């Protein structure tokens, strides 16, 4: 009899059930989307914070002092120690290689620009633009286009260079190919020399073609930026790299991150090593690249933690508000649905049903509604979260499968909580009044 009552109640009062069901579905959908966004926002914002550039720098261990003012290095070019370019792909072999978004080697060389007596000293900076590399069986590309997203290359007429890696012969300017003899010229230097894209430059007696004008808002605006291989040829040191900028996704610093790994117990050391702190990633980079010293770039590394925790905290509080609002909406809908059925309760009680049986029927109905609405709401919420991820972050917001039972549990709990007061009142209501229609 019990299942039949529940079944018939759904069949005959389809419209009322639909209303309550819609409320539950919408409430659960909003809750799911918000939880998904809130759990994933840390990772998403962390990636966006990478647009501030590299947060780690790797230098040779016995590095000599830079004597650099206004982007011009005053030291003899071959002075000092270098890293070996062949060691760089090993960065992809470190423990946290999935967290390493990209890296760019840098090799500044002071060169003579022009010929004869009016030659002047400028810095030629060798780097990767979008270099294809291989580590083990993994192919990847890296370079300044990933680690320095604010670098812009434009033609002399101000148009931006095409973003694609494929060379477009029709374009007047482009990012240089990593194995070409083409260079970029900083915008201030270009203005000073009145050079345009497509012009030639004479550097240390070589003729190089300018493929575009580079604008960075930094010292590179006064420099020439070339593929790394070209800079090594100019310097006469194949394979030499002065420093490597590494852009990594890190965890905000805490009490553990700042401790000295040498003074840790093995368990603490393991925990430290296996957390993506900027300090532990620096330590692992040092292990991967021989004779190197890795250091965090504090301007970038120290600030992202604060920004990240502020945004995460904010989303957490908003998610809480969303959960509260959807819980209230579901409770309100359930309360209304049950309140309307006092006559039925009166009838059941008049036929001899006890309070327990009547409550059980209502709770069973609520459970069914919560499960169906929860399922539909979870799917709708997942779609919503994905839509938010795609339109805002251009990437998917992943929904953890473990979220499903949690969401369903919350849906059932909220539906029960919302129904409980209404059910209690409906059961307590005198059947005589209910049947006479005086409520």
């Amino acid at each position, binding site marked *: 009899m019990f299942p039949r009552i529940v079944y018939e109640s759904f069949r005959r009062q389809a419209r009322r059930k639909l209303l309550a069901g819609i409320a539950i579905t919408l409430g659960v959908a909003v809750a799911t989307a918000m939880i998904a966004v809130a759990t994933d926002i840390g990772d998403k914002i962390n990636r966006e914070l990478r647009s501030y550039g590299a947060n780690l720098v790797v230098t040779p261990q016995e590095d000599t002092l830079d004597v650099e003012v206004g982007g011009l290095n005053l030291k003899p070019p071959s002075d000092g120690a270098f890293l070996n370019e062949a060691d760089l792909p090993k960065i992809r072999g470190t423990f946290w290689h999935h967290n390493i978004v990209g890296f760019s080697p840098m090799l500044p060389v002071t060169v003579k620009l022009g010929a004869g007596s009016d030659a002047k000293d400028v810095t030629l900076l060798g780097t990767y633009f979008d270099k294809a590399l291989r580590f083990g069986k993994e192919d990847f590309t890296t370079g300044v286009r990933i680690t320095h997203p604010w670098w812009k290359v434009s033609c002399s007429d101000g148009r931006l260079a095409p973003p694609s890696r494929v060379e477009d012969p029709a374009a007047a300017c482009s990012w240089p190919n990593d194995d070409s003899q083409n260079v970029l010229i900083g915008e201030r230097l270009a203005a000073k020399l009145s050079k345009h894209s497509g012009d030639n430059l004479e550097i240390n007696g070589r003729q190089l073609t300018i493929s575009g004008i580079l604008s960075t808002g930094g010292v590179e605006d006064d420099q020439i930026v070339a593929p790394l291989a070209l800079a090594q040829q100019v310097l006469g040191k194949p394979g030499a790299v002065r420093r490597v900028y590494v852009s990594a996704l890190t965890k905000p610093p805490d009490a553990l991150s700042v401790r000295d790994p040498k003074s840790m117990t093995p368990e603490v050391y393991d925990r430290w090593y296996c957390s993506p702190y900027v300090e532990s990633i620096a330590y692992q980079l040092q292990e991967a690249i021989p004779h190197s010293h890795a250091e965090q770039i504090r301007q970038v590394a120290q600030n992202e933690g604060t920004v990240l925790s*502020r945004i995460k905290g904010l989303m957490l509080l908003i998610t809480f508000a969303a959960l509260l609002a959807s819980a209230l909406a579901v409770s309100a809908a359930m309360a209304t649905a049950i309140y309307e059925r006092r006559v039925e309760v009166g009838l059941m009680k008049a036929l001899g049903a006890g309070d327990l049986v009547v409550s059980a029927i209502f709770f069973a109905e609520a459970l069914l509604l919560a499960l169906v609405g929860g399922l539909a709401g979870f799917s709708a919420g997942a779609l919503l979260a994905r839509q938010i991820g795609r339109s805002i972050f251009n990437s998917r917001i992943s929904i953890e499968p473990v979220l499903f039972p949690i969401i369903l549990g919350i849906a059932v709990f909220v539906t029960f909580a919302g129904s409980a007061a209404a059910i209690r009142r409906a059961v307590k209501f005198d059947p005589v009044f209910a049947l006479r229609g005086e409520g």
Partner: protein
Amino acid sequence: MTTSTTPGTLLTPLQVANRRAHAPHTSMFMRMLLRAAVLRRRRAASALLAMIVAAAVATAMMNLYVDVQAKLRTEFRNYGANLVVVAKEGQALPADALSTVESVLGAKTLAVPFSYAVARTNDGQSVVVVGTDFARAHQLNHWWKVSRWPDAPNQALIGMRAAAVVGPGASPSRQPFALTFQGKAIQLVPAGMLQTGAGEDSRIYLDQSEFQNWTGVAPSTIEVAANGTAADVDASIRKLTQLLPNADIRPVRQIMEGEANVLNKTRATLYASATLVVLTSALCVLATLIGWVFDRRRDFAIMKALGASEHLVNGFFAAEAAALGVVGAILGFFIGIAVAVWIGRVNFHAPVVPRFSVFPYILAGSVAVALLSAVLPIVLLRRVQPAIILRGE
């Protein structure tokens, strides 16, 4: 009231007549509105509660949406300067450049002068020496890890890597050391070590006036942390370009674009979330109020049976819903402001300024939702004969 009665106890008809005679003369319409709310206070209270919660959540969201952007901008200023004022080649910055920058950008802006020179140590190594204002640099560059800031004359801040040149090892030996610039020597005491992971590590920092006395080099660079939106910063750049013709005003693209990027994404997420939350709370109000109005179909039937026009009945329910919307909006608004202030304090450690300009929107929204939820059941009920409702079918 002349007779003191507690509500709920039975009254004799005489007492009732007596009380009614002495009650203040309000119109029938008002009386019906008030009595309906008082007699069915539990249902009315739950409808009002839903209204208050919805209005509070909407207020908090709107307040935060506006305020959080300002709050985040202040957080982003911790990244340091977003503008650099550099003397054009071969020219010097005017002596009053710093005060010009400060007067243009207002009191809250931080501007730090820097001057550079290459000096030699006793054993002939070159090192870059920078003159600056330590108090300002400390405020601008929060990320500088400094073991001790200089606080006495002739004290210098030594970059991590420059330490190897002027003193043995990484630990500051506090041994005085000498530097020469164009034949002029100076004796300096290391005050502390500076670690940034960038170019600053290979420099030595001095107080600006001592630096200038020694080298005669005036500041060539002013780093500026300008507050405000991108448009504000652009306006500042234009103004500074006019006032300082000898200088280039360069935006630090790395900082400006990173900030714009993160801020835009956060704002979009916040907007999407706030919309969802406000919609959900409107849904909550809709569900509660429809139930409430639907529940009162007997009142509706009785009014019609007693000869009330369609117009009057509709007006009555609409007025009731509107009153609920107004009361809910007012109470909810203040609760919402309190919530926004609390969130500001918990998350940003700074007060959120209450925005009373949001109130008209909240009020209009609440009344609109309340009216909508009243109209829906009325439209449904209008087709039903009063007799059927009164018979309880």
